[in-house]
């Protein structure tokens, strides 16, 4: 009599092993794909990008001259430094009334990158050294690394862009806190291909 190997226990074992394999394949590939993150940090499986700006006062007060930068793009100490120097805000005067000033700090600090569980915010924070306080998003090591392959003529010497501070001119989905590479289209140049 032939021994039928495909009995119930065998089928069960095969199913369990293949399920476990698929799950761990998915998990480890996800972790491997998130480049410079901590391999064992499970919260990386949460939200991509950064917090999309969701405060009307912040939108109103901080987007008259440039786009409203998500609080998740800098840590608390950096935002405090920016807010402490509004009378000389990168060469401009961006002073606020005391109540407005405090109101904005109350939005920035709890939503800053070091408090955030958004994936890109955490990557930004991890790239920073604890001793220096940068006050420009474009000076965070994470930002520099992400943009170091872009020729000058595409951004700084591009009259349609002019500066790396104009994120939304190339990143088409910043309103939703997304800076994904497949959403990048550089004015006068086209879609970005690595």
């Amino acid at each position: 009599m032939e021994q039928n190997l495909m009995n119930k226990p065998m089928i069960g074992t095969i199913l369990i092993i293949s399920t476990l394999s698929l799950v761990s394949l998915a998990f480890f590939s996800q972790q491997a794909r998130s480049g410079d993150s901590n391999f064992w940090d499970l919260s990386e499986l949460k939200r991509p990008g950064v917090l999309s700006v969701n405060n009307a006062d912040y939108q109103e007060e901080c987007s008259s001259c440039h786009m409203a930068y998500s609080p998740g793009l800098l840590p608390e100490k950096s935002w405090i430094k920016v807010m402490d120097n509004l009378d000389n805000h990168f060469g401009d005067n961006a002073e606020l009334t005391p109540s407005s000033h405090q109101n904005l700090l109350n939005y920035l600090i709890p939503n800053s990158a070091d408090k955030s569980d958004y994936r890109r915010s955490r990557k930004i924070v991890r790239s920073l050294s604890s001793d220096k306080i940068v006050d420009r998003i474009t000076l965070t090591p994470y930002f520099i690394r992400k943009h170091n392959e872009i020729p000058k003529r595409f951004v700084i010497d591009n009259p349609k862009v002019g500066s790396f501070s104009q994120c939304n001119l190339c990143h088409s989905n910043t309103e939703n806190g997304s800076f994904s590479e497949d959403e990048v289209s550089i004015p006068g140049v086209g879609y970005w291909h690595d």
Partner: protein
Amino acid sequence: MKNQMTPLTTMLAILTLSVSTNLFALEAKAIATDRKGNASNVVQGKKLWEQAFTGKAPFSNRSCTSCHGEKLVFAGKHIRTNKLIEPMAHSTNPKRFTNKAKVDKWFLRNCKWTIGRECTTQEKSNIIAYLKTQ
């Protein structure tokens, strides 16, 4: 007949004096307008708006027109970021000057950046008077 100031003559003298004083005052006010008949605060406002001031490089030559542009019915552009600034002319942008807090905030920032100090109340009112005619 005696040469005397009768009550009638006195009254006539006072009347003539007051009328001529009033005419003189009106004349003075007329002199305080420019050829187009604009009041002096509008003239002063336009002058301040277009005046050039010195500042820190790279923007060593500054005026209100640096960002708001030469033609107020058109949008301006931020001198550093190139972000669009809605027209200042009340005729094309009637929302202008309707929110006092907003007006105060921008005067605080922009006078300090352009002139290097806060604008006086008179200067602010002159500028608004000028912009409202545009």
